[in-house]
């Protein structure tokens, strides 16, 4: 019989309910795998199995891998940073709370780029994560640990966060499904903040159905997050098998090789567009005139908010503290200099600069206007199209170390995913076949709160693409 680790979460839940499998078996199998994980996907693994959840609970006790930056009471929550090494919060993030109340059991915390700043997971204070498809390559980031763990079958599913692509890009590079929900769908309370106006939590799963199932238990207005919203309709499991009458827009700006999309990625993308037409979709080019400026706006807005969000790491109430003999000023300077890694420092500097007197209007203020234009671009496109489709990442997984010295090249990994984040709209990445033996991703984005429709379309394409999402396992 198939091993629990070969099953999707939904399949496992069905077997548990049918009495063919126990949650304990699933948990033990995952725990064993997580313990001898060689990908460095985890920063903490549960020592003992939690009490069984009732099988009729929506998530029936399924083990869950949680990105390090979600605060979990009494469990290390370090956001991949040295400044929070060993920090155990006195409370649990709302999203995690909801999932455990729905019957999920916390299996592990996953490695990530420090404070979610990165696209390769090489910015973790706890070492880089390796891609299960090729251990010499990165899993993407910042939710790289979550993506690698799910792709390697070390966890049935995981949650991560996406600020400019941090769920979608690693999902694409690891050959799994990743959903970035509409901004406000999932409470941010308890998520250690990177960029507050962009951060959104979402699922990383083996297939689209699992993504819908996990997502359905995370959503909803949270009185502890002023920016959270009640969804107009509940999340439904996807069933659609065709795309009859669906209008897919292909924005030149985000899909042409001229924009740095690798040929192999572009080919896989085109092949899928043909599949979509066979499924009955109308595929036509569309325009997002300001999308090309998304990256610039993003790399001003996100660092600016981050520079402020990370000011609380000052050595006073928690985390690392490095005293000097020259008083408070030196304590601040040394604590932060030793606690933050190079990329985080770079972004704090960039963000502080963008907000500084005399620069605000030219940088932060301008970026927020560009954000308005990008939102308007999408609004216009969605009058003629149901979805916008693009490659998720311009490239397949790159080699460890190949971009660490070139921030700009690294930033370009988010080229296709950043515009949706700026507009606050939902987007999913699904496996889109291989290029050079490595996974590529297809991104499907829709209007705010169109997750159900996106999941349905993704479900239909997933079946047609027929991707075998299992790298050779160690």
């Amino acid at each position, binding site marked *: 019989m198939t091993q629990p680790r070969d099953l999707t979460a939904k399949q496992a839940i069905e077997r548990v309910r049918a009495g063919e499998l126990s949650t304990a078996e699933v948990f033990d199998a995952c725990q064993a795998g997580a313990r001898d994980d060689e990908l460095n996907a985890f920063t903490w693994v549960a020592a003992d199995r939690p009490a069984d959840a009732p099988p009729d609970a929506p998530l029936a006790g399924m083990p869950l891998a949680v990105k390090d930056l979600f605060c979990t009471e009494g469990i290390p929550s370090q956001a991949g940073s040295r400044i929070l090494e060993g*920090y155990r919060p*006195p409370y649990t993030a709302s999203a995690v709370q909801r999932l455990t109340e729905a019957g999920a059991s916390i299996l592990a915390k996953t490695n990530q780029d420090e404070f979610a700043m990165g696209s390769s997971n090489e910015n973790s204070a706890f070492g880089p994560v390796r891609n299960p498809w090729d251990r010499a390559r990165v899993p993407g980031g910042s939710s790289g640990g979550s993506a690698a763990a799910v792709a390697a079958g070390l966890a049935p599913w995981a949650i991560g966060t996406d600020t400019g692509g941090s769920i979608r890009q690693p999902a694409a590079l690891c050959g799994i499904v990743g959903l970035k929900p509409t*901004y*406000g769908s999932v409470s941010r309370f308890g998520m250690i903040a990177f960029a507050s*106006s962009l951060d959104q939590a979402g699922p990383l799963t083996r297939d689209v159905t699992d993504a819908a199932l996990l997502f359905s238990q995370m959503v909803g207005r949270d009185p502890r997050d*002023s*920016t959270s*919203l009640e969804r107009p309709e509940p999340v439904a499991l996807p069933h659609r098998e065709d795309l009859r009458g669906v209008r897919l827009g292909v924005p030149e700006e985000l899909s042409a090789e001229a924009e740095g999309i690798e040929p192999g990625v572009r080919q896989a993308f085109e092949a899928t567009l043909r599949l979509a037409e066979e499924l009955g979709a109308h595929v036509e080019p569309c325009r997002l005139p*300001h999308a090309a*400026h998304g*990256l*610039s*706006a993003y*790399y*001003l807005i996100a660092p600016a908010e981050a*520079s402020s969000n990370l*000011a609380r790491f*000052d*050595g*006073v*109430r*928690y*985390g*690392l*503290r490095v*005293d000097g003999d020259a*008083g*408070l*000023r*030196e*304590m601040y*300077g*040394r604590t*932060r*200099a030793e606690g933050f890694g190079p990329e985080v*420092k*770079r972004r*704090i*500097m*960039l963000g*502080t*600069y963008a907000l*500084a007197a005399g620069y605000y209007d*030219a*940088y932060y203020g*301008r*970026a*927020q*206007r*560009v*954000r*308005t*234009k990008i*939102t308007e671009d999408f609004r216009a496109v969605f009058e003629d199209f149901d979805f916008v489709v693009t490659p998720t990442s311009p490239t397949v997984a790159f080699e460890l170390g190949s971009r660490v010295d070139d*921030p*700009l090249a690294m930033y370009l990994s988010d080229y296709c995913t950043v515009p949706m984040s*700026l*507009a*606050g709209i939902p987007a999913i990445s699904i496996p889109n076949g291989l290029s050079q033996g490595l996974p590529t991703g297809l991104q499907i984005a829709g209007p*705010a709160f169109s997750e159900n429709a996106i999941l349905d379309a993704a479900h239909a394409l997933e079946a047609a693409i027929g991707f075998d999402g299992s790298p050779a396992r160690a």
Partner: protein
Amino acid sequence: MIDRAEVLHVASLARLDLTSDEVERMAKELSAVLDHIEKISELDLEGVAPTSHVVEVASALRADVPAPSLPRERALAAAPDAGDEGFRVPSPGA
């Protein structure tokens, strides 16, 4: 283009003690990123309103009802220098 002096000023605002190598590197890297970002200065954004909140939710206020506070020992549990019933710090003036 951002020079050494600007890097040092910004680092001081951000309370980051950078080594002189870091200052050099930061000047180069930030300049490169800013050059790329400069592209947005070409856009005509006359009369375009800035987006500060992508979802417009009305007020979302909290009723003025007390919730339990943390016991002091829990509040201080993670403090690097807890003492005198509080969080000890070097004096700002010192």
